[in-house]
């Protein structure tokens, strides 16, 4: 399955929030939707979920307009919150029923997910008696219980302790391997890098960058080397201004031409005490800052 947003425009009053947003996500893969606060991520997600219509543009599944009666979407909103005073089983069943499940299967699915997330003991408790992290896990059930084809997770890892983060990672991997479209939105780049094969960076209502994460990284000019060494001083003297300090005590060597990469590597290994030398690839963080950091 292929989900496609095509040329989406959206204005609220005078303010144009989305300007021709397009991106594609495929099943069996995770897709990262990135952008700074207020860039238009949530608006894009809401249009995708048919909360309100776009002024122009289309949401397509496998090339034809999405049928919300058939395609089920699960959504974990960034602004978390359910009914604080109601029993967990009651409200989770209610949400699953709203998404079209029969009462019985809804209860069954909810119980399955409570068990999967180690939350069964809270089944008959009121939501406001739970800790924040546990409330978040409960909220995750509303996104997954009805077995949606598209799962949208907005900042899924915020507020989770490391153990719960691992649990959630497993769940997400499971969803991806089941062939679902998993759409991530997060500011925690490490998670996006870990899961997402392709990304779109939205900046001020436009898609600033879109594509396969591996390709994006590869397309950066391969003209810098990262060098780990025990004797940095000798290299600094040898390379002069081409050598600067990189991250984590590494040295960064700027090449005059990407073509001299192998020659320089060889020279380094032969002449100096080298632990590791590799071509510099930008982290997602660097890419994000570069594309989303410009003007808002």
């Amino acid at each position, binding site marked *: 399955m292929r989900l496609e947003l095509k040329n989406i425009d959206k204005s609220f009053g005078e303010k144009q929030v989305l300007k021709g947003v397009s991106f594609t996500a495929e099943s069996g893969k995770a897709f990262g939707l990135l952008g700074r606060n207020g860039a238009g991520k949530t608006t894009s997600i809401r249009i995708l979920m048919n909360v309100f219509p776009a002024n122009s543009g289309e949401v397509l599944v496998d090339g034809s307009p999405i049928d919300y009666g058939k395609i089920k979407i699960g959504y974990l909103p960034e602004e978390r*919150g*359910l*009914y604080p005073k109601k029993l967990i089983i*009651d409200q989770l069943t209610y949400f699953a029923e*709203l998404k*079209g499940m029969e009462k019985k299967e809804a209860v069954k699915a909810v119980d399955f997910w409570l068990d999967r997330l180690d939350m069964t003991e809270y089944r008959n408790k009121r939501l406001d008696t739970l800790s924040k992290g546990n409330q978040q896990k409960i909220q995750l059930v*509303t996104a997954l219980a009805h077995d949606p084809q598209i799962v949208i997770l907005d900042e899924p890892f915020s507020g989770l302790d490391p153990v719960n983060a691992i649990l959630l990672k497993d769940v997400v991997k499971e969803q991806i391997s089941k062939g679902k479209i998993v759409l991530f939105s997060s500011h925690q780049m490490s998670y996006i890098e870990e899961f997402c094969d392709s990304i779109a960076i939205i900046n001020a209502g436009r898609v600033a960058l879109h594509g396969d994460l591996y390709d994006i990284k590869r397309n950066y000019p391969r003209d810098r080397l990262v060098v780990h060494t025990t004797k940095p001083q000798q290299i600094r003297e040898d390379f002069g201004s081409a050598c600067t300090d990189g991250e984590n005590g590494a040295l960064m060597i700027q090449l005059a031409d990407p073509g001299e990469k192998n020659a320089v590597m060889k020279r380094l290994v032969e002449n100096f005490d080298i632990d590791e030398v590799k071509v510099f690839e930008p982290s997602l963080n660097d890419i994000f800052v570069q594309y989303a950091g410009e003007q808002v």
Partner: protein
Amino acid sequence: MKQFGTILKFELRGYMKNKVFVGTTIFMVIAIAIAMFIPNITAMFKSEDGAKDKSVMLIYAQDGELADLVRQYFEPAFPDYEVKLADGTLEDVKAQITAGSAECAFAMDSASSYTYYVNNLTMYDSNTAAAETLLKEVCRVTAMLQYGLSPEQAEKVMSVEIESNVTALGKDQGQNFLYTYIMIMALYMVILLYGQMVATNVASEKSSRAMEVLVTSAKPSSMMFGKVLASCIAGLIQLVAVFGSALVFYNLNKAAWGDNRIIASIFNIPVNLFIYMLVYFVLGFLIYAFLYGAIGSTASKLEDINTSVMPITFLFIIAFMVVMMSMTSGNTDNTLMKVCSFIPFTSPMAMFTRICMSTVPWHEIALSIVILIGSTVGVGFLSAKIYSVGVLLYGTTPKIGSIIKAVWKA
């Protein structure tokens, strides 16, 4: 449709599990029960007290014959008093009253002139009014005797009675006033109470951010209609509980109420009036509840609800005042009422009042109901629209203008 049913059930269960809702219902049923048992309770106290504690009314006159004549007339006319002739002087009489051994006294100068002495004159003291009627009779009889009529003849003249029958060909306002009053009061209370509940319900979903999941799971129209209908059903359940228990307790105490016409007539409401009452009640409730729901969706904090709902509450109170004033004036067919009985926001009260208290042609009733149903559905969908826009607006409460713009575009 399935979604609507799910929401309706969920919301209704919310009401049934709400401690405040259940508590007030039980409280009202108990209050009604006590009210209905009042005649039995007072009867219990009365039988214990007996007749010995009647207050004393003194008759004082220089002329002993006059005093005795007055006493003869007063005794049967004041059954709650022990009517006695006063001994001693006027000062003694006053002393007895201040001391409390007598409650009041009539000091007669002549049959047509007296002074009434009482310790504390209460607001509802009708003794002088009654005494004057009696004294007029005394004077007339004395005069007739003086002009030579025999006591029997005088008696005959005094006891002439006029026979009369009143048949209301239209409506009996006195009788139906009560139904109108009950219906309008019930509607007033229920709309203000439940309207606020609907608004709070929507606003709390918004402030708890449950809305984020709800708007992506259910259609706004299902949400709005589900919520409002659930509150309407909850309101009706509460009313049925209260009036139903009133009926049960009334029947338990029927003997004690005896021939209390007011109470009896409440429970003997004509079927057609009852049906009109139900129709106008439900529609009136719904149209206002939709408005309250829409307003609730535009508030971003629960604290804002009270100020946000003010315009609707004013609208409703104005409608209430118009109807109440026309009702008490007795002229329910004035132009204002006629106009109001077709405007959807006032017609539930205005038209029902007119149906009860005057004769309204059937086509006017039909027109009013059709307009009301149409606008209730219209307001329902409009409020669903406002809801779908309003629930996603956080921050400051949006201005009416910007909501209208957003709804127009959506």
